[in-house]
């Protein structure tokens, strides 16, 4: 049989299985509304056109539209102790806060000696600042992904994504540019992309204000009881590119730095 001679060159069963998988809808690219994924505790941002409620600004202080107050190694400490600041913010939040489901958990600054204190403007924030996570951060990553020279961006990002999932317990992730133009999206939540952009922009502008650069801090938002959106902004020759990863708990600073470097290598083909 001639067919047999042709098929002897192939593993017919595996070819068939591969072909059948291609005829099915692609991998569970989400019926993922944040509400269904992240449980009833997740409310997310109000729909466009609605402003998320914010805590009442202090009378006599200018109202600042920035959404998030971020503290990281890039920031000089504010002239109040962190614990006091957390407490103060929590006290400011209304007793009932149905529109403030997200919690920003902030990683303390690194070992570096802090520069002289400078007053930082207080931002009205829809986020409630939580205390540091009880669980230890996700372990540090190991090797960098192997990226072949000359690959198109899409393939390099695909390689990066595969590496990312092998290195950390990432449930899903997305990559977008500063305007929210999506490069990769496994999460399927425009709201989370919006949150990530907000965090990234706030972090970048605050970093510029204090004139610091260096290794990125851990920017993350708790999206359910057991899930966190970790946001890793990265400057590349495309401009600011933002990685959002859904992980069980916040990543350590070292892990964030390692992922950031790998993302940079994938974007800039280093």
């Amino acid at each position, binding site marked *: 049989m*001639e*067919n047999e001679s*042709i*098929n002897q*060159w*192939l*593993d*017919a069963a*595996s*070819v*068939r299985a*591969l*072909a*059948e*998988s*291609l*005829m099915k809808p*692609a*991998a569970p*690219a989400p019926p993922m509304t944040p509400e269904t994924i992240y449980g009833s505790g997740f409310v997310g941002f109000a729909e466009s056109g609605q402003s998320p409620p914010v805590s009442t600004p202090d009378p006599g202080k200018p109202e600042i539209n920035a959404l998030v107050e971020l503290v990281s190694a890039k920031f000089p400490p504010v002239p109040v102790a962190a614990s006091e600041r957390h407490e103060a913010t929590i006290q400011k939040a209304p007793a009932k806060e149905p529109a403030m489901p997200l919690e920003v958990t902030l990683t303390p600054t690194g070992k570096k000696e802090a520069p002289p204190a400078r007053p930082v403007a207080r931002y009205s924030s829809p986020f409630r600042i939580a205390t540091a996570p009880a669980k230890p951060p996700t372990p540090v990553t190991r090797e960098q992904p192997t990226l072949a*020279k*000359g*690959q*198109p*961006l*899409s*393939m390099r*990002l*695909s390689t990066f*994504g595969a590496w990312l999932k092998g290195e950390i317990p990432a449930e899903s992730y997305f990559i977008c540019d500063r305007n929210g*133009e999506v*490069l*990769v999206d496994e999460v399927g939540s425009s709201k989370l992309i919006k949150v990530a952009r907000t965090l990234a922009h706030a972090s970048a502008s605050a970093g510029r204000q204090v004139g610091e650069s260096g290794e990125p801090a851990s920017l993350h938002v708790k999206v359910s009881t057991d899930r966190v959106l970790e946001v890793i902004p990265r400057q590349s*020759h*495309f401009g600011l590119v933002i990685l959002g990863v859904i992980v069980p708990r916040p990543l350590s600073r070292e892990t964030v730095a390692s992922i950031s470097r790998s993302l940079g290598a994938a*974007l*800039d*083909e280093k």
Partner: protein
Amino acid sequence: MITLAVSSQKGGVGKTTLAINLAHAFARSGRRTLLVDSDPQGSVGLSLTRQSRHLSGFFDLLGNPSLKAAQVIVPTRMETFSLVPSGQSSSYELSGGAMGMTLYRVRSFLAEVTELGYDLCIVDCAAGLFGVTADVLSASDGVIVPQQAEPLGVRSVPKMLEALTRMRMVNSQLHVLGVVLTMVQQNLPESRESAEALRSLLPPEMVMKTVVPRDDLFVRASARGLPVGVMDEGAAALAVFEGLRDELDRRMGHLLSPR
């Protein structure tokens, strides 16, 4: 607008012939159809326009963000059928992989084409599923895979499937619309048996029922710069591509909406 890529891992399988004639068949059904040549060899342009070597085209768009889609679209005698030649790819080839912006540019280009009111954009890709072709597939709604009815073509199927699987990891919205058997020679046992082998190997819904025969008419049509269906003797060939168009319509009926 729907974007369909005509792509295959292997070269010389009839991608350009399929792309030109499918675009012509869709245009005949009243859809505003744009045929884009993303193969640096420029076969679409060389097949359909004498001036193609001097025209700006797809690769100029990739290299020059200020260039607009409308500036590189070449009308044809058929009101519903236009094309974008590959253009002058030398500067792109020189800078090669450094042009990581390709995916952005491809998406921008397709957005502009949508704005211009096209219903369908068919992109003829270079062989292989890497480089610019990978970026085109990342931005496409569907892919049609021509497969030569020859033993070597069948043996290349696993690579093609693996490459498509990788592409769907990048673009989960990419529909594999089907494999089209091309260059089928019913009088040649090896060609016939290859076609049968492919049909037995792949799921039935993956292989299009319509096949494209090998025919001298394609060479003569190319020599005259015409889709084969326009030729005087081209009625049978026209029927083949219209059959293929109808099959594709059924496979993506929910995506295509005639004007």
